[in-house]
Structure formats: C-alpha cells, structure tokens
C-alpha cells in the first residue's frame, strides 16, 4: 500500500497536477490582481499610463511564473532552500556595494529589465531557508543554544544588510518572517516572552539610536496634528481619504484625495487608501475578505501537507503575508507609525510582487505535491 502510494506520487502526470491545484487560492490571487490593476488605473487618473501598463506586465509575467513554480516538485524547493538564501544575501551585498540610490537609500540593483529590490525577496527566502533548517530537526534539539544562535544569525545577517541601506521597515518585516518560522518550529514560549520584555525595556535606548527622520515618524504617529503640513501630512491626508470614503466610497475614479494629489505615495504604500476612498467600507471589507481567504487557503494547504517542510513553510508564509497586510493597513489607518511596507500584490513594485508570487507558487506547489514526503 505504502509502496504503491509512493509509486503513484512519483509518476504524477501533468493533468493530475492540474487537478490538484487550489483553484480557490488561484481565483483569489487573480481577483486580487484584477483589483490591483483597476486601482493602478485609478492612480493614473483614469488613463492607461506607465504605472498601469507596468503593473499589468509584471502581473502577467509573475502569475505565469507562479504557475510554473507550482508545477515544480516541492522537494526541489526544499533542495534550493539554503542556496537561494545565500544568493539573496549575495544580492544584498551587491546592493550595498553597487546598488542604485533613490531618495536617500540604496535599495535597488539595476538588472536592465527590472530594478530589483533584494530585500523584498529576502522576506520569502528567509522562510524557505529556515523551514529547511528546521525540517529535519528533532523537537528536543530545537531549543538548544546552537540551533537558536544559528537561526538568529540567519535572521540578523540580512537584517543588518537591509538596515544599512537604510530601510528599517523592510528589515523588520524580514525579521518577522524569520521569527514566524522559529515560532512554528517550536522554540520555547519563554524565549518569545523574554524577547518582548527585553524589547520593551530597551525601547528608550532603541529610540535614542534611531535616525532623526525615524524619530520624527514615531513622534508624528503619536501626534500627527502637530505638524499637519510637514511630517504629519501623509498620515492626516491618508486618514481623510479613508474616512471620507464612507460606507460605499466615492466611486471608481472619483477619489478626490488621490485625484487631486493630496495623497502621498499613492501607487505604493498608500494604495489601500486610494482603494478605500473610492470603494468605501464595503470595498475595503471585501478586499480584506479576499486576503483572509488567501491566508486561510495557505494555512489549509499547510495543514494537509504531509511534509513538515511544506507545513512550516505554508504556516510561516501565511503568517508573514498576514503581517505584511496588517502592518500596511495599520500604517495607512494611523494605527502604526509610517514604515515603508507595501501591500502584497496591490502595491506597485516588481520586487514585492515577485517575492509574493514566488511564495504563492511554493505554496501552490505544496498543494499540488501535498503527498510528497521529503527525507
């Protein structure tokens, strides 16, 4: 029986793979892609301009890429775990040395057809790497000093490389992705509690080490009305846009806050604001439901996967995506200070979409190959 099963899995054919696809997840991703296109069209002022075209192209290419990834057996992704991490670390070092500087930070590598932001990729590949690291580990070994130190090094190395860019937001998101894996791997609760306590205690010192503009962001978050035309401008205008949307929104292409350029960064970090202004509470709730379904499906795929690697990856990726979404939304809704964090798929930006789609692809691969065991 066991043998037969193994045989059947190894002789998986193309159509069976298709049958195994998670169509709900795929439908949600495509729907999200469509919504993001429509929103991008709105940011271009109701015309098909640069952002819409570029977003469309990337969306098509990366969706196909996701499908290709999902047909590749999950075990190969397991095999690539460490290598991909090392490659991205290499790219981060390259960025540090030769990256493109834009608005004061050096985040991008010029690949001629795309300006790649390796820190975005790291958000996913750190999960892949740590998932592989913990896959074979016995539970009693997980809490050994050696394991903890190794995983911390794996997390802190890219964090450091991203902080020097400087990009505090992304480095925190990388850390959160990594910590999610450690959490699911089963590291003792007490470490988390200690860390949180330690963080709270050292908060004043951390603030002392923050750069002036970062300090300003925190202060602005605490009291945006202090400097409404300066540092508080973004968050105030963002709240006005969302709040003025009301229940049903101002209507597609009728968001005055974005149309009249009161909204900052409306293509990228503040895309949700524009969406929320035009489609209101109902639209925003709808968008949140789509995200919720996506996360639910990712977790469900993890739950049905036979391999521990696939399970831990899906759970962690689901948690990471959830955190990206909530941090972005909390930021534009004035619940958190402004940190640069895009909304997955919705925000304009190739690297973020690439990373997210790779993540979806691996999850989908785990679904297609859910019976695959990894030694």
């Amino acid at each position, binding site marked *: 029986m066991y043998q037969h099963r193994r045989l059947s899995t190894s002789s998986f054919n193309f159509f069976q793979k298709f049958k195994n696809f998670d169509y709900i997840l795929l439908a949600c991703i495509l729907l999200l892609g469509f919504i993001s296109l429509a929103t991008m069209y709105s940011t271009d002022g109701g015309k098909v301009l640069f952002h819409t075209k570029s977003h469309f192209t990337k969306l098509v290419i990366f969706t196909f890429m996701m499908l290709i990834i999902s047909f590749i057996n999950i075990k190969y992704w397991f095999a690539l775990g460490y290598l991909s991490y090392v490659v991205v670390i290499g790219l981060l070092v390259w960025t540090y040395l030769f990256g493109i500087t834009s608005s004061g930070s050096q985040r991008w590598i010029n690949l001629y057809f795309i300006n790649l932001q390796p820190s975005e990729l790291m958000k996913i590949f750190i999960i892949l790497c740590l998932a592989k690291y913990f896959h074979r580990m*016995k*539970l009693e070994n997980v809490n050994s000093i050696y394991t903890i130190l190794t995983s911390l090094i794996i997390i802190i190395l890219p964090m450091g490389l991203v902080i020097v860019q400087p990009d505090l937001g992304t480095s925190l998101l990388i850390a959160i992705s990594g910590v999610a894996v450690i*959490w*699911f*791997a*089963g590291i003792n609760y007490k470490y988390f509690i200690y860390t949180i306590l330690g963080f709270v205690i050292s908060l004043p010192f951390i603030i002392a080490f923050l750069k002036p503009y970062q300090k300003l962001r925190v202060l602005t978050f605490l009291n945006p009305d202090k400097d409404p035309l300066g540092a508080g401008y973004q968050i105030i*205008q963002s*709240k*006005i*846009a*969302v*709040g*003025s*949307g*009301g*229940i049903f929104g101002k209507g597609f292409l009728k968001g*005055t*806050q974005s149309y*009249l*350029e*009161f909204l900052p960064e409306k293509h990228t970090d503040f895309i949700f604001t524009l969406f*929320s202004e035009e489609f*209101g*509470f109902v639209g*925003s*709730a709808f968008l*949140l439901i789509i995200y*919720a379904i996506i*996360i639910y499906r990712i*977790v469900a795929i*993890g*739950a049905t996967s036979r391999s*521990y690697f696939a*399970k*831990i990856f899906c*759970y962690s990726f689901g*948690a990471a995506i*959830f955190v990206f979404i*909530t941090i972005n*939304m*909390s930021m534009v*809704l004035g*619940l958190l200070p402004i940190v640069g964090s895009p909304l997955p798929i919705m925000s304009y930006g190739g690297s973020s979409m690439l990373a997210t789609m790779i993540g979806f692809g691996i999850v989908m691969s785990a679904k297609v190959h859910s019976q695959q065991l990894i030694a």
Partner: protein
Amino acid sequence: MINSSSDNVKKLNSINRRMFITGSLKFFIMVGIVSRLFFLQVKENKKYLTLSDKNRIREWKLAPVRGEFHDYFGNVIAGNFEAYQLHIIPEEVEDFRYVINRVKDLLELSDKEFNKILKKKNEIKSWETLIVADNLDWQKFSKINNHLYDLNGVKPVISISRNYPYKENFTHLIGYVSQANQNDIENTEAIKKNFVPGLKVGKVGLEKSLETKLLGTNDIERYEVNAYGRRISQLEFQKGEKGKTLKLTIDTEIQKLSNELLKDKAGSICVMDIYTGDVVAMHSSPSFDPNLFVFGISQDDWQLIRNNPMKPLVNKTLQGNYSPGSTIKPIVALSALENGIINTNFTVKCTGKTEMYGQTYHCWKKKGHGFVSLRNAMKQSCDTYFYEIARRLGVDKLSETAKKFGLGETAFGDLFSIEKKGLVPNTQWKKNALGKGWLLGETMITGIGQGYIQTTPIQLCLMTAQIANGGYKIYPQILADKENKINPSDKFEQLFEKSKNIKIIQDAMFGSTNEVMGTSYRSRIDNPKYQFAGKTGTSQVKKITERERELDLKTFEIPYEQRDHALYIAFGPYKNPRYALSIIVEHGGNGSTTAAPMAKKLFKLIIDRHKIRETMNKNKYLEI
C-alpha cells in the same frame, strides 16, 4: 524509525498547536483592523468628508457690483462702466520675458511702471492673475487685441468699475471710491465680509455714508483645486447681489447750474424743497473730478488738488463754518417779535453808528438810515436797528430761536460724518467753553451775525426753508426713496408762537428783494411766477480797522483772503413758496452784488424744473 515517527508526531502536535494560537491572534487583529475601518469610514465619515472638501474646494470671491446713484429723474450720477484691463497668468505664458516686453512696448509703459509689474509678478503664485493694466483706453486695448497672436497667455479683460459721468458736479455730495485700505476693512463689517483684493469702497460723501447699502455681495466661484492649489475645475458659480441703487432728491440741471455759477469761486450753493426737505442741489466749489481717484490718483493731480488755496477737498456746504452776517437778521427779528420785545411799529434812529460802553458799533451805511422800522431795517439791512433789538432781546433768547430753526445742529443727522454743527453762542456756552462772562457788546454783534456765531450753508438753507414754509420743522433729505428718509415724519412741528410773526418776516424779506432801496433789489424778478424773497449777507472775515473804514476800499482792492464772504438766502416763488436756497461765495465781497444775482439765475431754473418734477411725480402715481 519508531523514535523518529514519535518525534514527528510531537513536532506535528507542536506546530498545529502554535498554528491555532497564531490563527486566533490573526482573527483578533483582523477584527481590530475592520473596526478601525468602520470607525473611520462609517462613524467619523462626516468629519473626514468635511476635511476632504476643505482640502479640495476653494472659493474665489469676485468684487461685488456697486449700487448706482441716480438723480431724482433717473439720470445716473454715479454708475458703473466697463474698464478695459489686461491680465496675464504667468504659468500660461511660454516666454514671459518676451511677452511682457512686448506688452511694455505696446502700452508704452514707463520703466517705473514696468518694474512695478515685474515686482508684482514675483509676489504672486505662477497660476494667479497678474493685473498688468487696470484701466486701458480703447485705443490701447484694441491695439493689444490686434497683437494677441503673438502675446500668448495675455488676456484682455473687461471688468466693472466706478464712473462719475458728471465729473466735478457731484463730487462733494457723492464722494468717490478708491481701493479699500486697512481702516476701511476694520471699521465696516460689510467691507470685511465682501473684501477682495482691489475692492473699491467709498472714501467720502454718500459713497462712504451709504457703503453698506451700495456695496452688494461677492460673486463666488467655487473651484476644485489640487494639493498644490491649482484650479482643476469650476464647481459652482454663485451670483452675488448688486448693491442697492439709490435715488437722490437732486436735480442734475440745478446742480450743474450751481457748479457753473460758482466756477472759479470758492463757495457753496444749496437748494431745498421747503415742505419735504428734499435737497434739490447741493454744491461746494471748487470741486474736482472724482474719477481721478477710482484707479488711484497720480501724485501730480493730488498735489494740484491739495495745494489749491480754495481748498477743493473741503465740502463747504457741510463743513464750512461761516459767520452768517446779515442773513441771521430774519431770525433775530423773529425772535424779537416772538418774545414781544418789539412790534412792527418799533423804530430805531440809525446815525451810522452807536456807542456802547465806549465801544463804537458801526452800521454798514456810514450816513445812517435815519428812523427805521422793522420792515425797513430788514429791507436795507440796517445794522443799528439790529444792534438795538439784539441788546433788548438778549443772546439767550436769540439762541433759543436760532436753535429751533436748525442752527447749531447737523442738518442731516449722522448721515455725513464730516458735517459741522456750527455754533450758536449763549451765555452758558461762553462760560463753559471760554470760562468768561458774556459781554453785552457780543450780544450786539451776534445780532448782525458776527462774533462767535457760526453756521454752515446747509443750516442757512434749512433756516430759510423753515421761515418760508410758515415756520414748520422739516428734515433735509438727500435720498428720494421713502425707506431711506432720514426722519420720515409726516406731521409738521410748529416752530413759532404766532404765525403772524413769520408773515412779517417773510414780507420784510420780500421787501428786501423786490422794493426800491432793498439790498438785493437789483437781482429781483418781476414775473410773479419766479418772484422770490431773500436776504443778503456780508460777513467780515477780520475786524475792520478805523483806517480801513476811512479808506472804504472797493472789494478788488483788498487782498483775496481779507475780502468779505458774500451770502444770500432766499425763497420763492413768493406767492406760493416752494424752494429755499442759500448761497455763499467765499471772499466774494458783497452779498448783494455777488451772491444775490446767482439766486436770480437759480430761481428761474428752479421754478421751471419744478413743473417737470411735479409732472413726473404725478405720472409716478398714475402708474401705480
């Protein structure tokens, strides 16, 4: 194997437990975000909607259209005209330097004006309107229009501005408008509310007094603007209300004649309806063209007006405090009659001068008038007679009668802030103001309208009107519409004890003009239709020394500033009086030779115009 599989089970248990914890956490965070969305978008929606509108909607106020002034017959005496202006919006101009230089050549601007424009340009935002010229003549305006093909971004604009078609004729009455300054904005609520840069408001005269009625309200343009303040689209245009058009009681023809009569002289003429108080003409000379002020007066023009020794900026009708001279005599005589000091048979022997406590008081006629009765004294303006009755009457009783007839009080109430009250002295006044006791000699010279007593021309006119109408109180009116009347009271307040006394005064004034020996006999009109009665006055501006009295110089031999003021008050037609007037010619020499002849010309026109006025009134009622 067993070991490993049991470890696997443990691992799975651990990860699933932690997934459950994570899942619950996710749920609560999600709920938190949704409630935040609900709070912002549903609960606080109104607040943010308002903020969003405040962001995007901006109002532009346009200058309100000012109400007009019409004369009694509907002629526009202060109206609006279309001013040709030139606007440039700098950001719409490709090559600003070229265009502005081109405009400079076409308009022949001086370097000074040109630099002023460049300075203004630097002060405004690039999408705001730069006013290059605010009042172009038609020639230059059409020249610009002809060259528009190479003046990209230049906009010829027709804007509405104040115009005074009768120029200097109404200057002191109407006043003029000019750009509002900080004071105007702070002191008048309506200006503050409707203020726009470049708004013109009344500076003097009725334009100032009636500002609130005339101003109107702004047109408001609501625009949608972007984050940088640029207009994107017009949302609404709210038409403002034009200011009220005010009809005056003035007759332009009579006003024009007044202006003509006083040409090159300093003085004032006012004409009043003796029953309604309607002011038919009110002019102060010299005057100036109020249109000069509308777009800001040039330094040269301003100096010319300011330095004119005849003081064109002073409204002599309302601001001029003059000694009434002999024109006060009807009141002195009336007061004496009313108080029973004299009767018509009372006579005084005039020898040319009287002595009192060592002081000599001269009559204007050196030889004296001999025995004069009241009627003759009025007719020939015998000073000795009035010294005597004033002495008997006392200044307090005289001042009482004078005040009753409107002296010592503004004629128009609060309408004109500049209006002077004049001065009717009495013993109490002198004690309070000067801290000295009243002297009998001062009573005597008050009796011939010299000394402390001072009146404005409008007061003299009002006084005459009230004598002419039989002694009833009237209130001078300048606005014709009923709701704008200063004191709309129908019943006449009686100013006399015995109406016979008023008749006596009227008759004496008739004698003064229409009988041989009367001071203004030469200015009489025999036709009873135009026949009028009056009283001349000559008021000294300085004390005449004995030496000058000996010399008895002719008017033209005396320096201008020392010549006497010439005054004349009159009412007519005598048979059925309707109008009263007062004329003052500063340093005009003699009332009977300078002022009275003007009355002759005026009455001819006044009576003729009266018929037209009546016809118009009748038609007005017929229409209703």
